[in-house]
């Protein structure tokens, strides 16, 4: 059994990417249709070529090497890994654009200013900052839970994957009824299985990637909002104020604003990075009142505050989470252990031993024979009745003679002989043989010699075949009329007939007491 060789490093990059995982599953899905022996041979060879020493996360490195080899051996015409890569890039771009457009749209709505009523900072914060603060709060909870092993986002992500699968299946099911060919539908089903496998087996990874995509959307949104505000500020002069039905207390608003401004308060102080209490008081929008009388020095402090809010509570957390998910993806990929149920077969095949104990092919066939020598009924035995002395050890003479007398109706004297060659007769004679034993060449040749000698005298050689003797100690002497052994089976008689047929001796006549119960046995 070839084991790992020395610690020679793997010849290929042994780091995984999401695209690699998809390719890996694609190959494994294809393997499900292949012959296990062929797969074992191929995977064993890849394993032996890996030449890798013992190392942490050995299975991951080996499987990565396997993937590289498989990609070399059988490049995919439709590379699912590449497809995923493109899909992810496209999705990221789309989400960035969608986010950007939403950010621009929402910010421009919040920044509407017709010169009569100042831009409502409270509305701006409610639309652009408050939801992001809520999301940030949820994110913190999620991350806290993930520290103790509870993947909350993964459980939120489950309904998304289920819905995606359902949509995929529905789409192709309805397509099958309409324009898609059977092959396309089957291909789609395979891709669906692939998606399903990926979603099941690498859930944390794909959940993480989905989270990253959402961050891209968030980044787009915040960039859009910031850019929109900056552009509007650059090309227009707007007044800012605040208004709320919940409170009219400037102190409360100041407290809230100061709290929100805490992250940048070390850099920009009150009056620069966020408005002072007086400025807040001076920029309160009252019902039926315009903003013309607001001092520019009071309301202009609002927009840096608004921008910083979007930057700090919108863009920066998204960037931070994006970076975390990016790092986490690398960590998750590095930590892949491939020790799930579906990973065992490949491991087993890689470590398999080519074992065979099967025979080498042979062209040799057994001899051909047809049955022609007829089987005669036992009839009146004539004067000469011979039997080998060795046979008589197993069949008592008295019992044999009694049985012959009963079967043939004539009293016969059995003459023992030591060897077949000792048999000498000028007349037709009977020879008792143990028919339960297969005829071998030396017996057949001796019978042929006897038959050839007799044919010159126009005499026949009668062969009387006996069945298997009764075991020693069995009581057969009590009734001497019983046959001396078990009856011959039809199959045993047939074997003798075929073998004698090959001798081509017309004067050999075969007699046997065949067991009727075995008459159905044929060659």
């Amino acid at each position: 059994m070839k084991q790992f060789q020395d610690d020679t490093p793997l010849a290929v990059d042994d780091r995984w990417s999401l695209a690699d995982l998809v390719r890996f599953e694609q190959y494994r899905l294809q393997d499900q249709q292949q012959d296990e022996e062929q797969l074992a041979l191929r995977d064993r060879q890849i394993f032996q070529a890996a030449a890798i020493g013992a190392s942490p996360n050995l299975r991951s490195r080996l499987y990565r090497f396997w993937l590289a080899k498989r990609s070399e051996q059988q490049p995919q015409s439709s590379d699912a890994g590449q497809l995923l890569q493109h899909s992810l890039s496209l999705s990221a771009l789309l989400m960035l654009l969608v986010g950007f457009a939403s950010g621009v749209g929402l910010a421009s709505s919040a920044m509407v200013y017709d010169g009569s009523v100042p831009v409502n900072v409270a509305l701006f914060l409610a639309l652009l900052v408050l939801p992001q603060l809520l999301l940030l709060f949820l994110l913190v909870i999620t991350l806290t839970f993930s520290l103790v092993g509870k993947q909350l986002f993964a459980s939120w992500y489950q309904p998304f994957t289920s819905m995606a699968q359902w949509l995929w299946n529905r789409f192709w099911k309805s397509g099958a009824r309409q324009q898609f060919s059977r092959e396309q539908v089957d291909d789609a089903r395979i891709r669906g299985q692939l998606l399903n496998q990926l979603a099941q087996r690498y859930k944390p990874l794909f959940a993480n990637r989905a989270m990253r995509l959402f961050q891209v959307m968030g980044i787009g949104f915040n960039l859009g909002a910031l850019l929109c505000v900056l552009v509007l500020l650059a090309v227009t002069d707007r007044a800012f104020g605040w208004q709320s039905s919940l409170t009219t207390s400037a102190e409360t608003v100041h407290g809230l604003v100061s709290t929100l401004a805490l992250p940048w308060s070390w850099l920009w102080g009150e009056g620069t990075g966020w408005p002072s209490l007086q400025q807040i008081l001076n920029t309160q929008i009252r019902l039926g009142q315009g903003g013309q009388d607001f001092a520019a020095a009071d309301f202009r402090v609002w927009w840096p505050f608004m921008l910083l809010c979007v930057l700090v509570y919108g863009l920066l957390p998204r960037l931070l989470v994006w970076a975390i998910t990016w790092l986490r993806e690398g960590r998750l990929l590095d930590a892949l252990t491939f020790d799930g149920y579906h990973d065992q077969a490949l491991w087993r095949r890689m470590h398999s031993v080519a074992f065979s104990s099967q025979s080498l092919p042979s062209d040799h066939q057994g001899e051909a024979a047809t049955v022609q020598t007829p089987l005669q009924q036992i009839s009146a035995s004539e004067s000469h009745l011979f039997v080998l002395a060795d046979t008589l050890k197993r069949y008592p003479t008295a019992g044999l003679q009694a049985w012959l007398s009963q079967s043939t109706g004539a009293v016969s004297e059995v003459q023992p002989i030591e060897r077949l060659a000792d048999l000498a007769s000028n007349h037709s004679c009977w020879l008792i043989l143990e028919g339960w034993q297969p005829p071998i060449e030396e017996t057949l040749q001796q019978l042929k010699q006897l038959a050839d000698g007799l044919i010159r005298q126009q005499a026949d050689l009668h062969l009387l075949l006996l069945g298997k003797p009764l075991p020693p100690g069995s009581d057969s002497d009590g009734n001497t009329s019983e046959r001396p052994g078990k009856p011959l089976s039809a199959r045993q008689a047939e074997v003798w007939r075929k073998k004698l047929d090959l001798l081509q001796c017309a004067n050999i006549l075969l007699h046997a007491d065949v067991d009727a119960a075995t008459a159905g046995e044929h060659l």
Partner: protein
Amino acid sequence: MSHRNHPLIAVIGHPNEGKSSVLSTLTEDDSVVVNDYPGETTHCQYFPVEINGEVVLELVDTPGFQNPQRILEWMRATGKTDDALLQAFLQQFSSQPEYHHDCELMQPLAQGAALIFVVDCSRPLLAVDEAEMEILRLINKPRMAVINFKDQDRDYLPQWEQAFRRHFNVIREFNAHQARFPERLALLETLKAIQQSWEPMIDRAITAFEWNWQNRREQVAELIVDYLSWALPLTVEQAVGRDGDKASAEKDAAKQGLEQYQRLISEREIKLFEGIRKLYLHNLFDLRLAQHSVLKEDLFSESTWQVLGLTQTQMVLAAAGMGAGVGVTLEAAFGGLSAGLFATAGAIIGGGSVWFLGDELAKIRIKKLPLGGSKVIVGPSKNPQFPVVLLDRAILYYREIANHAHGNRGGEVQNIKDQSVLRHIESAEQKQFLKLAKTIAENKSDADSARQQLAELLTATLGTIS
């Protein structure tokens, strides 16, 4: 002498003693011609045991002796022994057609082979047997005798043993028609006693045989787990016809759906069985199951559900403590009484379905479609016996196939009275099987881990029956 670096062992004997059967069983090769027509093996057939392309042991099937008494007479007359006798014999007789088989069987010995002399000891010892053993003694190669009982008759054994003691140091019984894997291994172990220097190579071969057997068990376990993973959560949808009475259309659709559900599972089971059979290299001969084997019955037949699976008491014990299995427990215990629960399936398939232990086989739901009409959804099965019966049948089939000797060409696998395997394992294991099957059926996030655990549990269980 031999140019080989591995042990070469020739299987020698009188015609029709079961030499080919012994080799067929030992090497799991059902391509070996085995029948009762003497002289079927006319040439040596080699069985190399290969590990990663390296031959570590080679067995040879040989033709039977055809002229033992004549050869012995000639050998005695030469006054030679050992290799000199062997070479002289081959020189003398290789050109004579009637000695073709005898020369052929001597060839491996001339190449340095040791020999296994195979005899059927259910028959008396004959003069030809004495002659054959004497020939082998004169040639003097490392040798052992293997007793192969073609019948159950053991009356002649003392006679044979006495004769063996004169000619062989190592004697082993091996029933080529019934030998299972442990017996095959035991025979291989005995080969080490023929010649001590071959021990390391034969050890390697034995290790490879053991590894291969374990590997196949693991593969069978995986096949079964894959089958269950597919069958347990299976659902079948059937559109309800829009013509006629709504109730009868729904009933028809449910009937069709249930039939399809059963057919799909039965077809998948056949595929599983084919896979198992292929793994155990029963490729060429059509194995017939024993007359009363429950495997001959349909998966959903009453007798299958009576013979296989857990008893009601076992089911209660196994389901107890499974948490969500309270309903299951009660159903298992009192299923036969809760007629209402099985009425659906029972009524639909036209006969009683009492054998499903009271619970319906599969859930049947009717769902309205958004664009009008409705469909019937059959499955997945919530019947607690369902996974157990599927498992039990698969394990039973494995037991029949894995234990069927390749040399047995009778075509019948063993008829074992106690057909259920799962009824006879420990209660804790029954509980474990049930729990894992439930997790797989629910196909939740821990299903993959349950699959792996089930595969391991199954591998261990299969190890106890083969």
